[in-house]
């Protein structure tokens, strides 16, 4: 937030820029009012969804509001939980594994419980449903952000930490002036990824059926699900187009400028200093010309100045210097309390779930076991397929930056697009070639998860040092040997990371991919995912709990026994430099 002298080009105000800013603010305000009104509306199970394209902008607005609220929640949670884990050693030992488990378990399975609880708390308005939806999106977004921020906190150089101590920064000052600037770049990048993941959850949770209750929130996801339920193909196409417009505009108007802006926090200070990729900065420049926005910036600077201003000279009153004193008793007491509360909450949840599952009989467990087998096969088949195509393509893209730059926007779009929205289309295709959902679920799963493999392979391949590439070329490595001796090991760390992320997504996707509503018909196949979905639909909570727990345990076990081992092996053996 360094003070910045507006340059003359920006001093030249443009009426259009002002109008744009005013318009944006009006839109946000109107949106907020609308959303608020909708929230106050009485709870209707199965809210009527209008399929005419003219309501799409409004629905898009609702959906955007949900995903941004969820993102805001994720950001706050990220900063709080990661800082806690970083500064409290004892909490760290609990929080980090918890985050690790949470990011790998199928959060979709928790949706029913959440919806019921929140609807119970707010029986007379939509607000419970809204919160449930936002929390679901949040759970799909938050984990990688939290990990990235924790990593950034660990990456703050010791020099800067010492500086903060020398200047006697308070925790608040340290956060704004040291920690957040260091974390900004990776936080922005991870936010972008998270937001894309959020659309997947949004598309499912806006229209959600539990037993005979149909919880529906007006939004782009529910529009799509109604269009699919009614077999209204033109409405489906409108929905897909609207989703595409949302993704592209959020990308261009929010993430691109943010990514550019965050480059100023780059530690290698020579990078990009004379870069002239000003094409994507035009919007930011345009905004900067607005007088209204400049005033706002000034207000912000003043406020932040007041908030961050030093209240006393550094180390005034030496005996009070916080750094050298043990933690105040009150703070420690609070930390202990929070710790105990966390433990108690965990214990309570375990006991309740245990009691719930105890109601199941042997047939249930048999069904779960069989389903687990099928679903595991599907997940790994989806993963194998993704690896099979994404590795050669990703390596090719990574080694040819000219192509990858050109293709990147398209791949990013495809990756952000919530796959469940087009499940019925894919299923129709599968049906056309005589397939059933039994194996047809595999392409549905692949649809959402292949991108993680591709992205990670591209980035790993593009970071192979130039000399190593030259060396491989000079030695004439070709064919099988080129892959086994050179390319596969070189991309191994990225490939494993991509597989871990993709597998996590795949388990989640089985819940919607093994149990698909297409038109008026319902297609399902044997599997753990469909077991969970069926239990959800029937409102059978013991079955639901058992299904979710089995899946969660399985995922965590596979992570620990397979992926983590592979990851540490790849990182140990195959890192350059």
């Amino acid at each position: 937030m360094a003070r910045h002298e507006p340059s003359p080009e920006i001093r030249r105000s443009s009426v259009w820029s002002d109008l744009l800013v005013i318009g944006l603010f009006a839109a946000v305000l109107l949106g907020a009012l609308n959303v608020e009104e909708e929230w106050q509306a009485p709870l209707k199970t199965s809210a009527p969804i209008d399929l005419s394209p003219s309501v799409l902008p409004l629905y898009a607005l609702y959906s955007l509001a949900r995903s941004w609220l969820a993102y805001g929640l994720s950001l706050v949670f990220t900063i709080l939980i990661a800082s806690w884990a970083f500064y409290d050693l004892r909490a760290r030992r609990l929080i980090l594994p918890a985050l690790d488990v949470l990011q790998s378990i199928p959060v979709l399975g928790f949706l029913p419980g959440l919806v019921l609880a929140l609807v119970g708390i707010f029986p007379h308005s939509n607000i419970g449903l809204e919160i449930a939806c936002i929390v679901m999106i949040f759970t799909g977004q938050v984990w990688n952000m939290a990990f990235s921020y924790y990593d950034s906190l660990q990456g703050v150089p010791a020099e800067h930490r010492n500086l903060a101590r020398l200047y006697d920064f308070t925790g608040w000052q340290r956060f704004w002036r040291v920690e957040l600037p260091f974390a900004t770049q990776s936080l922005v990048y991870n936010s972008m990824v998270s937001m894309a993941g959020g659309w997947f959850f949004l598309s499912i949770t806006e229209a959600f059926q539990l037993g005979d209750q149909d919880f529906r929130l007006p939004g782009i996801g529910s529009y799509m699900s109604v269009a699919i339920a009614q077999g209204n193909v033109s409405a489906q196409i409108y929905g897909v187009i609207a989703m595409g417009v949302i993704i592209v505009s959020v990308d261009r108007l929010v993430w691109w400028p943010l990514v550019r802006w965050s480059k100023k926090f780059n530690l290698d200070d020579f990078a990009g200093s004379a870069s002239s990729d000003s094409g994507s900065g035009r919007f930011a420049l345009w905004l900067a010309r607005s007088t209204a926005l400049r005033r706002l910036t000034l207000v912000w600077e003043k406020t932040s100045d007041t908030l961050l201003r030093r209240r006393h000279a550094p180390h005034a009153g030496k005996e009070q210097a916080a750094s050298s004193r043990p933690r105040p008793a009150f703070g420690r007491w609070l930390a202990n309390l929070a710790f105990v509360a966390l433990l108690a909450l965990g214990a309570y949840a375990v006991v309740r779930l245990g009691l719930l599952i105890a109601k199941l009989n042997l047939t249930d467990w048999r069904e779960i076991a069989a389903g687990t087998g099928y679903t595991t096969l599907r997940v790994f088949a989806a993963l194998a397929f993704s690896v099979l195509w994404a590795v050669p393509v990703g390596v090719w893209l990574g080694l040819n930056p000219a192509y990858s730059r050109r293709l990147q926007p398209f791949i990013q779009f495809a990756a952000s697009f919530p796959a469940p929205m087009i499940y019925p289309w894919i299923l129709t295709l599968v049906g056309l070639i005589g397939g059933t959902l039994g194996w047809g679920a595999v392409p549905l799963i692949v649809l959402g998860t292949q991108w993680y493999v591709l992205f990670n392979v591209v980035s790993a391949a593009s970071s192979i040092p130039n000399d190593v590439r030259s060396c491989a070329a000079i030695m004439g490595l070709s064919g099988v040997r080129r892959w086994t001796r050179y390319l596969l090991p070189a991309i191994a760390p990225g490939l494993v990371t991509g597989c871990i992320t993709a597998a996590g997504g795949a388990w989640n996707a089985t819940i919607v991919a093994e149990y698909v509503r297409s038109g008026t018909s319902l297609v399902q196949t044997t599997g753990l995912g469909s077991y969970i979905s069926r239990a959800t639909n029937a409102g059978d909570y013991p079955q639901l709990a058992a299904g979710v727990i089995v899946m969660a345990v399985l995922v965590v076990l596979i992570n620990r026994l397979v992926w983590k081992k592979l990851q540490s092996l790849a990182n140990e053996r195959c890192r350059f430099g």
Partner: protein
Amino acid sequence: MSASAPILSLRHVSHEYGSGTHRDLVLSDVSLDVSANDVVALLGPSGCGKSTLMRVLTGLITPSKGEVFHHGRALHGIAAGVAMVFQNFALFPWLTVRGNVLLAVEHLPPAERDAKVERILATVGLDVYENNYPRELSGGMKQRVGIARALVASPEVLCLDEPFSALDVLTAETLRNELARLLADKTNPLRTMILVTHNIDEAVELATRIVVLAANPGRVDQIVANPLPYPRDPKSPAFAAAVENLHCILTHTTLPDAPVNGPDAGKVSFPVDETHHRIAPVIIPAVNAGEVLGLLALLPTEAIDIFDIAERLGRDFGSVVNLLKASELLELVRTPGQDVFITDFGRQVLAASTLDQKKLLREKILKLKIFELLVRLINVQEDKVLADDTLLAELQALLPHEKPRVIFRTLVNWGRFAEIIQHDQRRHQMRLYERKGPRVLTGPGAGKA
């Protein structure tokens, strides 16, 4: 495949990086032959395209213009029988030392390849380490693996791309001596090498022909034969004479004695068409303005040899020459021949306070044609704000053979240093610097103690 044809030869090769408006010409019209039993050193200042030239010779880079021949035939792809040693080793971290070396001969029958690997590992002194991974080795050991990997396939030509510059001085010396011993060994079949280096002693110790390259754009300046018999003794008078000769050539190449302070200082004229000539400014060397002052403070009162300065600073010759060129352009030093004198103006600058230093240099810098041009360019802009892109395009048009980005960075660096321009990195634009009253910092970034 006639026996007399050189192993590798280049004919009128030019190469540029980038595309569209951002093109950098790195090699310009280079012709070169590498015959059997040649040890060719490519010597020159940084940015003269030595490494690119080597990569063109090996076929790793296909040049934008010109032809490459391998045994008299046009080369497509990688030249057969070529091995390469890289500056940063380029080892495969997932393979053991043995695995890395084996990779180069894996296509051979097992018995033969194992014998070769054993022999070469013993030769370079790596047999103890054969089952270690590269990350467990020191830099010198890593480069031994690199050399073993290159030698194991019995190449026809060995390419060495600054093989010792990532190593500490002592290790580099050891490895260089071993390579020299290899060349002195008459039974060793490998007698053809291409060596990229910026170290004159290294070139004289190893090469039979030394190709001195000039920078911006990279081109062959002179080819010096170095017929001293192996083994060469760096303390012998013949060796010293060869080094001295190369010193002179390099100095002349990179720091010509042409009168730079005449009335036409800082100008080169380019024909625009038959009747008009465009006055193009001499480019300013790509150095930090602050470093020029640092160099000045290091200079003794009497004359000093350029190579002594390089040694004292522990920097490569090219970068020192660039610093001297910049100092000479600002009339801080004179460089007759290989000697460097500090001028009266230089002394005056040295004695001045920081503020006065800037003022003195500002006057000199403003007199440079390229800055006159920059100031004029800013003044003709609407709002007197010059976009980076505009300046880059202008530089490209004005100096088509230079790297516009490099000049741009230097211009901005000098302009800011001398308080001539203000550059806004976020908005990619600049304007003339205006001195304001004492600035009051109120932003949250300014600590108020």
